[in-house]
């Protein structure tokens, strides 16, 4: 298998994970979300990540100490792929985790319409937006 092929496959796998997450929200099946999107899919992607790191990271040029070294590290296709799989795994996990918190804390489900696409594309932005939403939409006691 080439790095490009594994890239395509892991992208498809991640997309499928997001579809399961979406289905679990639309059909109100929290068990699907907790089993597939919180655990199994991110775990499977993490397993792939570990294989790539063990197989290629320690032989690659570069390192984490300087930006130039990080760039050098990502010039190796398999190492760049490992970095990408890292995104895929954790983005899905964060997306599923946000959905879980929204549902369980009784926050408006419609928020997910914004939060999930945001997490899918730019997950730290989605993560931060969730925490803002959580404060903004929290229930408060008001006196008459």
């Amino acid at each position: 298998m080439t790095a490009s092929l594994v890239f395509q496959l892991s992208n498809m796998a991640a997309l499928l994970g997001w579809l399961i997450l979406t289905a679990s929200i639309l059909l109100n099946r929290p068990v699907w979300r907790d089993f597939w999107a919180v655990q199994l899919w991110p775990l499977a992607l993490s397993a792939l990540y570990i294989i790539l790191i063990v197989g290629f990271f320690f032989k690659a040029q570069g390192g984490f100490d300087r930006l130039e070294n990080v760039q050098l590290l990502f010039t190796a296709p398999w190492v760049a792929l490992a970095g990408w799989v890292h995104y895929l795994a954790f983005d899905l996990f964060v997306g599923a985790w946000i959905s879980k918190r929204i549902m369980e804390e009784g926050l408006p489900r419609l928020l997910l319409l914004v939060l999930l696409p945001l997490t899918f594309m730019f997950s730290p932005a989605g993560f931060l937006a969730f925490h803002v939403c959580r404060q903004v939409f929290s229930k408060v006691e008001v006196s008459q």
Partner: protein
Amino acid sequence: MKRTYAITEFFKAARRGSPLLYWSAIVMLVGSIACHAMPLFDPRLFNGVSVWEKPAKFFMSLAVLGLTIGWAVSLLQEKARGVLVSTRILFLAGWIEMAYIVFRAGRGEGSHFYTATPLAAILYSIMGVFALSLTAFSGFIGWRIWQSRDGYLMREAAGLGLILGALLATLTAGYLSSMQGHWIGGDQTDATGLGFFHWSTTGGDLRVSHFIGLHAMQFLPLAAMSGDKRVVYGVGLICILATVATFVMAINGMPLLRA
């Protein structure tokens, strides 16, 4: 009920199931660590990596096998004589393999596929006999556990895992033994292989399917931790398919992951 860690229980069970294989595995783990440290003192290379890389791998592999067998035997209600004798044969076969691998590694020579002298050729074929007893008696123990499964999922998974792992490992090893080496095309060196596993990134490598096949022994019990029978059989099926797929890739000269 006292709460404890699954891993602690696993080691305790392995020791209960077969003290012989348990302590043998502990020694082998130490051996594996020692071999990993050897390149600090001994810079010699074989196939592009330290001569001690192979004993390190086989120590690790046989330690995992010993612990798995010990743990699996602990699942049996009563230990039949055949099972006890099998564990002793596994102990003996494992250490004979190890002794020969360490001996050849120390001389900077190959062990598997090494037939440069008539004596080496004979010893290589004797290795085959002991390697076959490792899988055959693991499979036999698996069969006895399978027979006594009695609706208990972990016993079913452990038994099936040992049988399946033994079968897939023997089939892939049988093909390996008909070859001159485990590489098909590619660089024919571990230097450009994957990290840790050293599987070829440039050509076919028969070690991949052998590895995946034999670890059905561990994958199936791990799947049984889900408590769902379908997961166990699903993982079993995946092991078979992955073994076949990686085998077909190897004989066609394709690396698992191409550099």
